[in-house]
């Protein structure tokens, strides 16, 4: 059996169906098996990423039928990059959650099944070449996310999950309407095939379909004003799941949006104003809200929304440089925000309210965790020479190419705000005295290992950005090269 992209979906599903049986033999196996699967998938990522560099896009058909008739999976430099990123972070989150005390207190078997399915759903969204199949995987991602948001019984998870579910259902309704209209126009569901027949669609209909898609995917991608679910879900979900939301769910949404804009509609030639405007509004509102937050995880959630605004605006530039910057920000954000969530979870572990004000003197109590958090904060705010700085520089260059002065000013302004609120936290951790004696929980060895791996990767990108920029450049080329994608998938 050859290693192929289908392994990303088929093997986790097989494992997920096996878990209830395995749990009857030994409870522990139900927790280890998802980790083994994710480890194997990381191996698949490495194998396929080297292969895709040599041979170009890998398009695999499912069900024995080629692209327009059957469903196909596309492992391109772009989808490969994102899938590898998500799988890698998924494995680290599994390692972190393994023997995580709060998860242990609840039904840990369900937690690991849902975590595995969340990763699989996001991978499916990114790999599939079929628009309806994308919708199905989006729903798989969403349902696991609802359940994980409500996982803890001692928090208000059910409220957050219910809100998320309502907004998510709205998203799926919009997506389905868009798919329907599109199918009625072109009679096919394969994305490459739709893209090649897009000129049959009248321009008015095109706008309707585009708006419906944008709303649908915008909800998953945390675009303003559709991100009402995000702060609550990030706050109430188990700590490590925040990292998965930031790196998998949102990335899948943004990827889907980018695919629709660039490949399906071919809007890549000129700046897409609506994306730039929505992106700027999203980041401005989110970063100013983040500044006002009192709870740590809420602040991180708003910061995550702000970064997504930046990504959406960068995609909106429409040029290759813009796409490159967007992808670079996505990669950095996935890694750094995961680190912030993973380390932040232990910093507020002991507290009930999880307020930033309770972090006073944390650097003395939990030196390692606090140092990692501070490092993450510096990196994401864009301090040179850390990786966040490089991605913002590339964004500014791309914006300057298009002579978007207003956008540059907005980004600089927003970055200042970002620096301010992260410094607020660092200030409390390092320069305030602890107010009272509290029971702190020290991170377990697993958790420390996963945080250190993330730190190492971020440092690597910071000091040797050239090593990853090759991959990101290939991915940006892949997204911009619409004709290449269509011809390859349709075998022309």
């Amino acid at each position, binding site marked *: 059996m050859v290693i192929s992209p289908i392994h990303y979906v088929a093997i986790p599903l097989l494992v997920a169906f096996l878990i209830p049986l395995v749990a009857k033999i030994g409870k522990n196996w139900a927790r280890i098996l998802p980790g083994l699967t994710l480890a194997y998938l990381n191996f698949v990522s490495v194998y396929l990423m080297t292969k895709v560099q040599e041979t170009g896009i890998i398009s695999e058909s499912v069900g024995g039928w080629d692209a327009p008739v059957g469903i196909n999976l596309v492992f391109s430099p772009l989808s490969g990059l994102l899938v590898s990123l998500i799988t890698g972070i998924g494995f680290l989150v599994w390692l972190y959650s393994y023997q995580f005390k709060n998860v242990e207190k609840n039904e840990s078997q369900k937690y690991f099944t849902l975590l595995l399915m969340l990763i699989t759903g996001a991978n499916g969204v990114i790999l599939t070449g079929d628009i309806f199949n994308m919708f199905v995987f989006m729903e798989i991602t969403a349902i696991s996310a609802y*359940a994980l948001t*409500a996982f803890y019984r001692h928090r208000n998870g059910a*409220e957050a999950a219910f809100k998320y579910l309502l907004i998510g259902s*709205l998203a799926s309704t919009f997506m*389905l309407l868009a798919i*329907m209209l599109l199918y009625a126009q072109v009679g096919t569901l394969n994305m490459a095939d739709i893209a090649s027949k897009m000129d049959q669609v009248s321009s008015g209909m095109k706008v309707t379909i585009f708006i419906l898609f944008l709303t649908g995917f915008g909800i998953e991608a945390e675009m303003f004003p559709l991100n009402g679910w995000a702060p609550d879900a990030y706050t109430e979900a188990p700590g490590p799941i925040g990292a998965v939301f930031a790196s998998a769910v949102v990335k899948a949404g943004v990827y889907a949006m980018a695919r629709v804009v660039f490949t399906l509609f071919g809007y890549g030639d000129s700046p897409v104003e609506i994306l730039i405007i929505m992106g700027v509004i999203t980041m401005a509102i989110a970063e100013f809200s983040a500044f006002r937050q009192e709870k740590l995880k809420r602040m991180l959630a708003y910061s995550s929304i702000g970064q997504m605004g930046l990504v959406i605006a960068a995609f909106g530039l429409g040029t290759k440089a813009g796409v490159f910057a967007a992808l670079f920000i996505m990669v950095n954000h996935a890694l750094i925000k995961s680190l912030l969530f993973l380390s932040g979870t232990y910093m507020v572990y002991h507290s009930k309210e999880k307020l930033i004000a309770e972090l006073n003197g944390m650097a003395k109590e939990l030196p390692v965790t606090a140092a990692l958090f501070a490092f993450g904060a510096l990196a994401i705010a864009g301090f040179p020479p850390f990786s966040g700085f490089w991605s913002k520089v590339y964004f500014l260059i791309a914006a300057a190419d298009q002579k978007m002065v207003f956008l540059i000013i907005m980004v600089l302004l927003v970055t200042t705000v970002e620096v301010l609120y992260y410094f607020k936290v660092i200030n409390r951790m390092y320069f305030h005295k602890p107010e009272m004696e509290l029971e702190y929980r020290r991170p377990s060895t697993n958790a420390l290992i996963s945080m250190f791996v993330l730190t190492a990767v971020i440092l690597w990108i910071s000091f040797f950005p050239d090593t990853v920029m090759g991959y990101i450049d290939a991915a940006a080329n892949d997204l911009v090269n619409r004709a290449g994608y269509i011809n390859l998938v349709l075998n022309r």
Partner: protein
Amino acid sequence: MNIQDFINFLVYGTAIFLIIGGLYAVLTKKYLTKIVIGLSIMDAGINLLLIAIGYTYKGTAPIFSPAVEGKTVTMVDPVPQALVLTAIVIGFGVTAVALSLVIRLYRHHNTLCIDNIKNLKW
């Protein structure tokens, strides 16, 4: 208005009315169960719309049973029907999760009215 336009208006209007009605319930109703019912109505509208798109006049079900062997028959578009099957199942799954969340909210707050559940206010 010719007959075709009237039929279009009737069919799509009904389905869109269901979608809008469901959305109205989701947006304005105060009771969690009613919100979930709204979601289901919305799903029903979507499914109806999807089926309507695939219909052909005088079309039969796309099944090549012995009854149609050797004859030329028009068949309706089979793809929307397959998609509806998927959409129904997904709608069912989401509704089940929504109901379980409602049960848990009731357990905590002993009420189904969103006015009394502090964290559900927007």
